[in-house]
């Protein structure tokens, strides 16, 4: 009997040992695999920054436009690569945000330069900026080399790279400390301002479309209740939730059931946005009726006259985009969006952020090219379907008056939208129409 117990116990111990060893080696493999991923990201980051630095140097000394264009393109690629690898580092965001900003702006700025200077020389101002970027990129590259020497990144284990919170703050850690130093140093560098999506001023652009006097909370509540009444067809007693302190200061209200939320701007009392929480499981209203409800709903607010530019029916709701028309051109930057429920035709949501951020008095120039002439600029592979005038965002700061030409690839079903500048006749953008997978395009 006792012997049997020993045998069973022995087998158990052996099984346990075998199991533990298996677990151990599996974990070992996983840990090494993970630290290898991080090490690779670090080395790629370093080499991308080195390459961007070298190319910044080349741009500064080159006399050839072709060489300059090549180097600018390479800087863009290297900087965006470096940014992607940097944000893959297992470090808290507070250490990475500034460095990531620097790399994104470097890539974006050199992209904007290669567009702006296609075939022409750099300006003195460009050069000054590039010199500064060169200095900063060089010191970033030195600091990364130093992290490599001090932390021996390839040898760092998963435990070393684990969450910051589990680390002893008093103990020096060459890896994360190094990234902190980089971030601190770059924070002293003035942020880059230029015409591109990652420019430092983009996040803080003031709304252009806020007009009118500052209204009181009571006045805002009255407007909000009226709008919700028009949207739902019933009286809802909203209550004030909070002062919203964003780029568009607003009063926030909610319904007692907490299913409707609406913000009214403090300046001008405009509906900035509202949402309704409701799951809709059937379609009982025609798209035409839903569209009419949305048009009627917006007419009761003080917007200029609006046209529907796009609509999408999906999940028993209808999304409609509206834009103002000026001198025959659709103002795409100034969108207002409305969602209609297709079970009862009520308005579920509205978003006027684009309008409030972008709407302004514009002088629309007279087109120099006619619609026919613009269509003639199309590639021979395309046949135009329809053409209209539109104002589109050209860069982050500029807009362009364009012909929006919907066209079909000859002999194929594929559709494209081509934008031809109405003043220069130049093709400024091409969009590929992704064939509708979800929902129906109804316009």
């Amino acid at each position, binding site marked *: 009997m006792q012997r049997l117990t020993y045998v069973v116990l022995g087998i158990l111990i052996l099984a346990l040992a075998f199991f533990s060893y298996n677990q151990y080696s599996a974990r070992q493999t996983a840990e090494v695999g993970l630290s290898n991923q991080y090490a690779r990201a670090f080395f790629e980051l370093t080499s991308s920054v080195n390459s961007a630095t070298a190319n910044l140097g080349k741009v500064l000394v080159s006399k050839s436009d072709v060489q300059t264009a090549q180097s600018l393109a390479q800087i863009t690629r290297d900087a965006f690569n470096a940014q*992607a690898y940097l944000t893959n580092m297992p470090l808290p965001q507070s250490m990475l945000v500034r460095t*990531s*900003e620097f790399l994104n702006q470097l890539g974006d700025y050199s992209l904007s330069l290669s567009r702006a200077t296609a075939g022409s020389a750099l300006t003195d101002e460009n050069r000054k900026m590039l010199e500064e970027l060169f200095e900063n990129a060089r010191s970033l590259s030195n600091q990364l080399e130093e992290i490599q020497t001090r932390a021996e990144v390839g040898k760092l284990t998963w435990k070393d790279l684990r969450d910051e919170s589990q680390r002893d703050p008093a103990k020096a850690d060459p890896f994360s400390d190094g990234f902190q130093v980089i971030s601190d140093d770059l924070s002293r560098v003035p942020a880059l301002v230029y015409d591109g999506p990652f420019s*430092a001023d983009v996040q803080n652009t003031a709304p252009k479309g806020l007009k009118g006097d500052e209204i009181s909370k009571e006045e805002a509540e009255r407007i909000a209740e009226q709008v919700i009444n028009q949207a739902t067809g019933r009286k809802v007693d909203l209550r004030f939730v909070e002062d*919203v302190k*964003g780029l568009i200061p607003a009063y926030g209200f909610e319904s007692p059931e907490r299913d409707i939320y609406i*913000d009214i701007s403090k300046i001008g009392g405009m509906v900035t946005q509202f949402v309704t929480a409701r799951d809709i499981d059937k379609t009982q209203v025609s798209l035409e009726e839903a569209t009419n409800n949305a048009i009627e709903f917006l007419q009761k607010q003080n917007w200029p006259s609006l046209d529907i530019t796009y609509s999408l029916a999906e999940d028993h709701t209808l999304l409609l*985009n509206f834009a103002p028309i000026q001198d025959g051109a659709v103002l795409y930057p100034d*969108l207002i969006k409305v969602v209609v429920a297709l079970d009862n035709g009520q308005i579920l949501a509205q978003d006027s952020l684009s309008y409030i951020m972008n709407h302004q008095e514009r002088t629309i120039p007279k087109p120099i090219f006619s619609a026919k002439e613009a269509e003639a600029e199309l590639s021979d592979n395309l046949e135009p379907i329809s053409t209209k005038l539109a104002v589109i965002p050209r860069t982050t700061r500029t807009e362009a008056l364009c012909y929006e030409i919907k066209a079909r690839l000859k002999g194929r079903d594929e559709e494209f939208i081509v934008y031809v500048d109405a003043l220069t006749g130049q093709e400024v953008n091409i969009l590929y129409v992704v064939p509708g997978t*979800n929902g129906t395009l109804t316009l």
Partner: protein
Amino acid sequence: MRRILHVAFLAAILALSAFLFFWQPSSYAGPNQYSGYVDLIARVIAAEAQGEPFEGQVAVGAVLLNRVKHSGFPNTVPGVVYQPHAFESVTNGLIWQRTPSQTAYNAARNAINGWDPTYGCIFFWNPSKPVNSWIWSRPIVRWIGNHVFAR
């Protein structure tokens, strides 16, 4: 089996990045480059903001997309979702354990279509949980349910 999964995963990532690289919005007025990520965004919303008011769920989706557009964060939706230490539910795997509700999908669609109750915020956190003290230095825009939203 595992190997096949790994290969499939890599292939999916490659396909996704190719997709992202070549895909452009179909019109200045129409759907946008994020609509292919409705599932991923709904999953993050479900994992990070279940039980929060609907507006708070839209807000979490909006923060995710604001990060994609912000220079301080990865420039793609998967990049932002999978950034190390960015979302607790991604770090602990919760996003793949919880199936998003219809409400989470509705919230994701609203965020993709441009609704942003946070007016451009790039951070949100639950003040009742321990957070990095650095985060409190960011300018707070609003509170929705249990979350603070900041720029």
